[in-house]
C-alpha cells in the first residue's frame, strides 16, 4: 500500500532521512517512533508530497507520492495546526468536502457523522475555530482528515500537547478507526500510546530506521516498548564511546543488527504474499552481512570525536 | 476612598489641562516664528520635479497639501504684503498638478500685490498655458485673460496686453466674448488706432445682425470713433511732415489732409464700404471741426504734447 524505497532527504549538508525503506500494508496501524528531530515528520511530508525525496522513491497505492490521485485517498492530521480561525467547525468540514468535490447533501451527511465520531460538543459546531480548546481543535482536525473517507490516515503527533483526557479521546478515535479497518500511519514519541494502538512500529533516529516490526516481535516479553526504544536510541548514539570503554556487545548493537536486516531482505520478503510471513522474514536475523554492513558506519561516525580527543 | 480617587482624578485633569494650555502659550509663538522663518525661506520649498518620483502617483494629493500650505502662507503674510516664498509654493503646486487652475489664478491675483513678486506672474501663467494647451485647453481662456489683465494693469504694456487678448480671441476655444473688445480698447490706448478700427470692423461684420442690436450699435459707434482717431493720427503725421513739429492743440489740425493713411490703406473694400456708409457728418479725407467734436461721448481724448500722441481719457 505504501512503499518507501531507499529514500534519502538532505537539507544542504545535513541529511534528515538516510536510505529509508519501509512498506505498510492495508489495514495496518503503523507507529513511526523516534525522538524529536529524528526525521519522522520529514518522512511523513515526503509521503504526502509536501517534500520531495532527494533520492529514492515513494508510492502510495502504486501512485507516485504527492500525485493528485494519491492525495484523493489519504487523510492527514498535522501537528499543532491552527485551523482557519474564522470558520466554524461545520464550515471547515464543508470547505474540505468542497475540495473533494462532494455534493452538499453528502457533505452534510459526512460532517454530521464525523462530528459525532470525534465527539465535538454540539454547541461548538457553529462556533469559530479560534474559540476552540486545543483538544477540540485536534478533534476537528481529525474530522477534516476523515472527510474524504480516506484509505490511509496520516497522523503527525496526534496526541502531543493534549491533556490526559484529550489524549484518551484521540486514542479512542484511533482505536475506533482501527476497528473500522482503516490503515493508519502515525508519528509519535509517546511510546505507551504506540504500544497500545499499533500493529507495527518503526523506530527512527537521526534519519536512520533502527528497528521495524510488529509489536510482538520488537518488544520481548518482560520489556516495555520504552525499554526497547531507549536502548535503541542510546545504543545508536554512542557505539563509539561504548567501544572505547569496553568492546562489549550491547543490546543496542543487537538492535542495530535487526534494523539492517530488516531493511535488507525486503525485496525477498516482498515476493511472499502473506503479511505475517513478510514480517517474519524482515525480522529474521542475518548476522554476517549485517555486521559487515554495520561496522563501517560506527567507524566513520567515531572518527570526528576521536580526532578531537587527540 | 473611591471619592478621593475621583477627586484626585478630576484635579489631575484640571491641572494638566491648565498645564497644557500654559505650555501652548509658551510653545506656540516660538513654533509660529519658526514656521514663519521656514516659510519665508524659499529654499525650504522643495522642487516639484525632484519630489515627483517619490510620490508614487499621489501627485495631486500632495499638490493639495502644499496648496493648503501656500494659502496659509499667503494669509499669514497678507498684512505685510510680502510673499517671497509664494512663487516657489505655487510653482511646486503647479509642478505636481499642472491642471490646478486656481493655483495659477491665485498667483495672478496675489503675487502682484508685492513689488518683490510682481515679476513672477508671467512665468507662472505661461507655464500654465504651456502645460495645458495640448490636453486641457478648457483652462486656457482664464489663464490668457489673467495674463492680459496683468500685462495691462500692472505693467501698463498696452500693446503686449492687447496681443494676449487678441490671441485669446483668435485661437482659444471658449475665450470670453469681451476679449477682442478689451484688445481694441488697449490698442486704442496704445495709439494703434488702425488695429482698434480693424477689430471693431471685424466684430461688426462678424455679428452682421446676429448679435443684439445694442451690441451692433456699440460696435458701429466704436468703428466710427476708431476711424476718426486713426484719421486724426494720420493728420498729425502729415502736420509733422509739413511743419516739422506736432500741433499744440487739436484744432491746429483742422483742414489737414489724412490720406494716404496706413490705417485705411490696409482695409478691405468691404470694410471701406462700411466706413463710407457711416452717418458722415465728417470727412474721411480731411479733418474738420466736426471730426474733433462729435461721437466721442464715451471716449473723450486730448492731444498729449509730451508724447505727441492722442490720449484717451477714459474708456
Amino acid at each position, binding site marked *: 500500500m505504501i512503499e518507501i524505497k531507499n529514500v534519502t532527504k538532505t537539507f544542504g549538508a545535513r541529511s534528515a532521512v538516510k536510505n529509508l525503506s519501509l512498506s505498510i500494508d492495508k489495514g495496518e496501524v503503523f507507529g513511526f517512533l523516534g525522538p524529536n528531530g529524528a526525521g519522522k515528520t520529514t518522512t511523513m511530508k515526503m509521503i504526502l508530497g*509536501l517534500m520531495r525525496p532527494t533520492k529514492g522513491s515513494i508510492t502510495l497505492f502504486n501512485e507516485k507520492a504527492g500525485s493528485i490521485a494519491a*492525495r484523493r485517498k489519504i487523510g*492527514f492530521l498535522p501537528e499543532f495546526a491552527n485551523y482557519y*480561525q*474564522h470558520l466554524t467547525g461545520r464550515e471547515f468540514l464543508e470547505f474540505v468536502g*468542497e475540495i473533494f468535490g462532494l455534493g452538499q447533501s453528502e457533505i452534510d451527511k459526512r460532517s454530521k457523522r464525523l462530528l459525532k465520531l470525534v465527539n465535538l460538543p454540539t454547541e461548538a459546531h457553529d462556533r469559530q475555530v479560534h474559540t476552540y480548546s486545543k483538544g477540540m481543535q485536534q478533534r476537528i482536525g481529525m474530522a477534516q482528515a476523515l472527510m474524504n473517507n480516506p484509505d490511509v490516515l496520516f497522523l503527525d503527533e496526534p496526541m502531543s500537547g493534549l491533556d490526559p483526557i484529550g489524549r484518551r479521546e484521540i486514542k479512542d478515535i484511533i482505536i475506533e478507526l482501527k476497528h473500522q479497518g482503516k490503515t493508519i500511519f502515525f508519528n509519535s514519541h509517546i511510546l505507551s500510546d504506540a504500544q497500545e494502538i499499533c500493529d507495527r512500529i518503526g523506530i527512527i533516529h537521526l534519519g536512520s530506521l533502527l528497528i521495524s516490526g510488529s509489536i510482538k516481535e520488537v518488544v520481548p516479553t518482560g520489556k516495555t516498548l520504552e525499554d526497547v526504544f531507549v536502548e535503541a536510541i542510546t545504543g545508536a548514539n554512542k557505539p563509539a564511546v561504548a567501544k572505547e570503554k569496553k568492546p562489549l556487545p550491547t543490546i543496542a548493537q543487537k538492535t542495530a543488527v535487526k534494523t539492517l536486516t530488516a531493511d535488507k531482505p525486503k525485496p525477498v520478503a516482498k515476493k511472499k504474499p502473506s503479511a505475517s510471513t513478510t514480517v517474519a522474514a524482515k525480522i529474521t536475523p542475518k548476522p554476517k552481512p549485517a555486521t559487515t554492513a554495520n561496522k563501517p558506519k560506527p567507524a566513520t561516525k567515531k572518527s570526528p570525536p576521536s580526532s578531537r580527543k587527540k | 476612598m473611591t471619592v478621593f480617587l475621583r477627586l484626585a482624578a478630576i484635579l489631575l485633569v484640571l491641572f494638566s489641562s491648565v498645564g497644557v494650555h500654559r505650555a501652548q502659550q509658551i510653545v506656540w509663538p516660538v513654533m509660529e516664528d519658526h514656521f514663519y522663518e521656514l516659510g519665508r525661506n524659499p529654499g525650504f520649498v522643495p522642487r516639484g520635479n525632484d519630489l515627483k518620483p517619490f510620490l*508614487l*502617483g499621489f501627485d495631486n494629493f500632495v499638490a493639495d497639501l502644499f496648496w493648503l500650505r501656500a*494659502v496659509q502662507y499667503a494669509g499669514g503674510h497678507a498684512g505685510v504684503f510680502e510673499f517671497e516664498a509664494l512663487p516657489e509654493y505655487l510653482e511646486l503646486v503647479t509642478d505636481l498638478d499642472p491642471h490646478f487652475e486656481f493655483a495659477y489664478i491665485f498667483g495672478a491675483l496675489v503675487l502682484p500685490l508685492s513689488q518683490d513678486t510682481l515679476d513672477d506672474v508671467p512665468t507662472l501663467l505661461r507655464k500654465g498655458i504651456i502645460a495645458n494647451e495640448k490636453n486641457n485647453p478648457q483652462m486656457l481662456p482664464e489663464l490668457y485673460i489673467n495674463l492680459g489683465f496683468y500685462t495691462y494693469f500692472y505693467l501698463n504694456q498696452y500693446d503686449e496686453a492687447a496681443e494676449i487678448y487678441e490671441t485669446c480671441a483668435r485661437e482659444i476655444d471658449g475665450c470670453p466674448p469681451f476679449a477682442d473688445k478689451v484688445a481694441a480698447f488697449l490698442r486704442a490706448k496704445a495709439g494703434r488706432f488702425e488695429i482698434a478700427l480693424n477689430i471693431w470692423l471685424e466684430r461688426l461684420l462678424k455679428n452682421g445682425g446676429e448679435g443684439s442690436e445694442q451690441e451692433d450699435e456699440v460696435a458701429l459707434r466704436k468703428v466710427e470713433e476708431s476711424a476718426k482717431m486713426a484719421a486724426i493720427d494720420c493728420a498729425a503725421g502729415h502736420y509733422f511732415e509739413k511743419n516739422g513739429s506736432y500741433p499744440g492743440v487739436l484744432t491746429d489740425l483742422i483742414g489737414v489732409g489724412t490720406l494716404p493713411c496706413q490705417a485705411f490703406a490696409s482695409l478691405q473694400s468691404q470694410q471701406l464700404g462700411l466706413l463710407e456708409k457711416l452717418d458722415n457728418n465728417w470727412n474721411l479725407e480731411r479733418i474738420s471741426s466736426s471730426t474733433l467734436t462729435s461721437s466721442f461721448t464715451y471716449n473723450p481724448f486730448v492731444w498729449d504734447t509730451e508724447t505727441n500722441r492722442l490720449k484717451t481719457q477714459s474708456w
Partner: protein
Amino acid sequence: MKTLYALVKNTFRETIRDRILIVIAFFGVILIVATQLLSAISARQDDKVIVDLGLGMIDLFGMIITIFVGTQLIFREIDKKTIFVLLSKPVTRIEFLLSKFFGLGAILTLITAIMLVVFIGVTAFSTDLIVQNGIIDVQFVGQILLITLFSLLSFLLLLALVILFSSFMKPMLAAFSALTVFVIGHITDDMRTFAMDNTVSPFFKQFADAIYFVMPNFAVLNLKNFVLSNVFFTPIELLAAAAGAVFWIIIAVTLGSLFFSRKEF
C-alpha cells in the same frame, strides 16, 4: 474548478471575517472629517481637495490592504500549518496560489466598490460636483468610475507581485520587494522621458529603455491626477494600459506558481 472555487471562497471568508472591513470605517471617518476641516482652510478649493483626498485614500487603502493582507495570505497558511491540510488533499499548488489571488482580489474589488460609494456619497453631500441643480454630472461620475477601476487594476497587479514574492520569500521581504517593483513601476516613464530629453550616456538610455520594458508600468494605471481636468484618454490608450496590467498579472502569478510548485514545506 470546483476546488478552486472552494479555495477562493475560503480565502474570501477568512479575510472578511478578520475584520478587514473596519478599514472602510476608517476611510469614511477620515473623509468626512477632512471635508469639514478643509472647507475652512483651502481657499474655496475644498471641492478639489476633497476629490483628490478621496481618490488618493482609495488608492492608499487599497495598497495597504494589498501589501499587508497579501503578504500574510501564504505565510499564515504555512505558519498555522493549514497549508499542510490543503496540499495533502487533491489541491494543486497552482490552485492554491490562484485561490489566494482571486480571493483577495474579490476582497479588494468589494472594498474598492464600498469606498467608492462612500466617496461619492460624501462628495455629493459636501460639494456640487456630482449633483448640480438636481442633475447628476454623468461625465464626472464616469471619470471617477474609470479612475477607480484603474486603481483596482493596480491593486490587482500589486497583489500578483505580492503573491509572486511571497511564494518564495518571508512576508517582510516580499512586501519590500513588491513595493520596490511598485516604486520602479511608477518612475520608469519619467526615467525614460528623462533619458530621451537629456544628453545622457547611451548606456543610461538603454538601461532606462530596458527597465521600461521589463518592469510593469504602474504610472499608466494612475489616472487620479487627471480628475477635474479635461484631459482625455482614447479608448486605445486605456485598453493598452489595462492589457499591460493583465499581462503582468498573468506573468507574476505564473512565475509565482512556478516557484511555489518547487517549494518544500
